[in-house]
């Protein structure tokens, strides 16, 4: 009950604070609207030009391969691009430059390499042979006790044959080349979308039961708009800032003004105080998510859907970042220092965790840094839960966030001083 009283009081205090409301809700909403307006085509802006040169030709008449065509259709179905074909024998850059003319805008070219389909299928075939070998090996392990010697020998020979065959298959990887103008403001978004479609192809080809059905599967992914991709990222980023900046500053302010000391003189336990604050943060973050998605629906017709797993992730994220906020407020004494420390941690994390730009396009050292940042896993988890609906991606990230949440809330509560020295 005491925790509920704290939750009510802290939440009311926050809701009535204009600056709190602005930075926690309004600012992320404005950011979403700005990003959405720039990248969604709202307001009459048409889709982005994308030149595609398909070098993957098969047969004597040089027809494009089925998979390369499917990839282009998938890009087309996003409705983000106005796709213009580049003849296979042309210099793609010169062609695009000529086609756009002197004021034609940024050059964006995707080159699908020769052998795209074959490499993709061979690569997939090798993976599938590997899976077959692994499955038979496991079967042998479990059923060996029930086999006679002849059966065992025959089985082992088969396994050896399959393994040899797998090793004989070449390692095939196919590549896509994306040429973008360095000054192109939309470059990050275009890379993000192309990378997402390529990921969907990888996933379907390697993990799906029916590779041939891949084209249909990939279509479901491509219904999402650019803003759909931004909503989980921006939401995750501001759940992080609510914990690391706002909660740190508020708690430090409460501490400075003796409010926490006043409460600690009552029978209120430290754990009640922490639970009350975490509940308040969770409510705030759920409100933020609802408002972001609601506005996305209204203005940008987004299709992103928060399911139960997304909500669980938001609760875990709220706990994790509240824990970090409490840890920081235990370390700093004054409000100015709390804001400075909060900003110094939150803003780099926001830009290094793949929230606004896909990590794939970043240098490898930044990708390494991203791996140790909690926001990376939280944002990835939310994206998987809200967009890709990819269970492994959801549960892996959720597990990491859950472990971090427990760890940080324990450290945060240890750092919350309930007694003077």
């Amino acid at each position: 009950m005491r925790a509920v009283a704290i939750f009510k009081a802290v939440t009311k205090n926050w809701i009535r604070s204009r600056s709190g409301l602005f930075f926690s809700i309004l600012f992320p909403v404005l950011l979403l609207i700005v990003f959405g307006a720039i990248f969604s085509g709202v307001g009459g802006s048409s889709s982005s030009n994308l030149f595609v040169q398909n070098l993957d030709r098969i047969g004597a008449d040089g027809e494009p391969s089925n998979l390369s065509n499917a990839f282009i259709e998938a890009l087309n179905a996003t409705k983000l691009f106005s796709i213009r074909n580049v003849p296979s024998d042309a210099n793609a850059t010169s062609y695009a430059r000529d086609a756009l003319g002197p004021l034609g805008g940024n050059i964006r070219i995707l080159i699908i390499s020769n052998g795209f389909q074959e490499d993709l299928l061979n690569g997939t075939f090798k993976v599938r042979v590997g899976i077959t070998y692994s499955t038979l090996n496991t079967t042998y392990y479990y059923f060996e006790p029930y086999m006679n010697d002849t059966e065992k020998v025959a089985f082992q020979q088969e396994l050896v044959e399959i393994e040899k065959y797998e090793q004989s298959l070449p390692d095939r990887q196919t590549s896509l080349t994306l040429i973008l103008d360095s000054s192109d403001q939309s470059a990050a978004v275009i890379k993000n979308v192309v990378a997402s479609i390529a990921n969907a192809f990888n996933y379907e080809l390697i993990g799906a039961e029916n590779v041939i059905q891949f084209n249909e599967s990939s279509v479901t992914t491509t219904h999402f708009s650019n803003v759909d991709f931004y909503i989980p990222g921006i939401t995750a980023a501001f759940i992080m800032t609510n914990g690391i900046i706002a909660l740190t500053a508020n708690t430090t302010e409460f501490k400075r003004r003796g409010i926490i000391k006043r409460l600690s003189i009552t029978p209120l336990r430290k754990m009640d105080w922490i639970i009350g604050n975490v509940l308040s943060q969770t409510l705030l973050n759920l409100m933020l998510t609802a408002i972001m998605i609601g506005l996305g629906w209204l203005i940008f017709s987004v299709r992103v859907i928060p399911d139960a797993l997304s909500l669980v992730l938001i609760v875990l994220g709220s706990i994790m970042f509240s824990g970090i906020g409490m840890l920081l407020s235990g370390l700093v004494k004054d409000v100015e220092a709390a804001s400075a420390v909060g900003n110094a941690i939150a803003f780099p994390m926001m830009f290094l965790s793949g929230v606004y730009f896909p990590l794939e396009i970043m240098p490898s050292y930044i990708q390494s840094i991203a791996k140790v940042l909690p926001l990376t896993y939280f944002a990835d988890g939310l994206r998987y839960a809200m967009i890709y609906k990819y269970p492994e991606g959801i549960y892996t990230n959720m597990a990491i966030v859950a472990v971090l949440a427990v760890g940080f809330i324990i450290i945060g509560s240890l750092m919350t001083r309930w007694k003077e020295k």
Partner: protein
Amino acid sequence: MIELKNHVFQFSLHIMLKFICVRCSFSLPDGARMSKAVVEVDSLLKQYGNLRAVDGVSFEVYEGEVFAFLGPNGAGKTTTVEILECIRPLTSGTAKVFGYDVTKKDDVREIKRRIGVLPQEFSALDKLTVKENIDLIGDMYEKHLDVAEVIKLLDLEDKTKERFENLSGGLKQRVGVAASLVSDPQLIFLDEPTTGLDPKARREVWTVIENLKKLQKTVFLTTHYMEEAQMLADRIAIIDKGKIVAIGPPQDLISEHGGLKVLVIRKGDKKLADILQGKYGQTILNGNGDVLVKVDDVNELWQVVATLTEMKVKKDIEIQTPTIEDVFLKVVGGRITEEGELRQ
């Protein structure tokens, strides 16, 4: 006419002296000492490295009394109080509140249930109203008084829906007192309740403290204002550099340490000063032209007045009695500034 004036003066003086005598013999604390001790502190020490913030203090606070801890900033007042409020650990010694030991976890829970606290520089959640802030503190206790009643008691009814951030300093302190009362505590700690307030707001808080006394609450007041301690407290402990240097009822302290009463003859002259010096000694002419005669007791006072009557001195006369400030000056060797700093 002059005689009549002198008679009136003597009559007034007589009444005044009688009043002083009554005040002197009005030993509230004797009664208090018969009461149960709600706070018992023995050889309490709080040490930070080599610094002894509280240096072996021992005292008791009795049920129903207003006990003032008087001292400059850094004397150890708040440290002592926070040890008693169970939010600061002690280094050694014992401290008990209602017989419960402040160092024992189970006892701490019992103490926290029974005390109300107005911390130094009380603050609350800015965006919450007066009622919501008092409600919040009330909700921390298993049982609490009707918040509306507490608000009425503190005369805050007009401000119930006002946000805390919009209140004046005096009103904020009243909210703090209301929050400290909402759990219906038997003992209330008021830590520097009037520091930083303007005179009007300070008087408002004094009225509140007087009302607490009428409600038979035990009040533990810390202050650096002499006047406040003298006016409100039944007993005063003067603390300096972590040590209690004097403790007792204000009048006892004044009698013991305050020095002599002074008869002041306004706009006197050197001749008068010399005559009085010759007869009674301890007479000076100060820079304002006032003649000051220190008197040992009431008899001597009467004698001086009689001498003045005989000399037909037509001057304004007043008696200056020593105050707690004089006591403080004597036992600590300095004065406390408005900001609470000790000035030697």
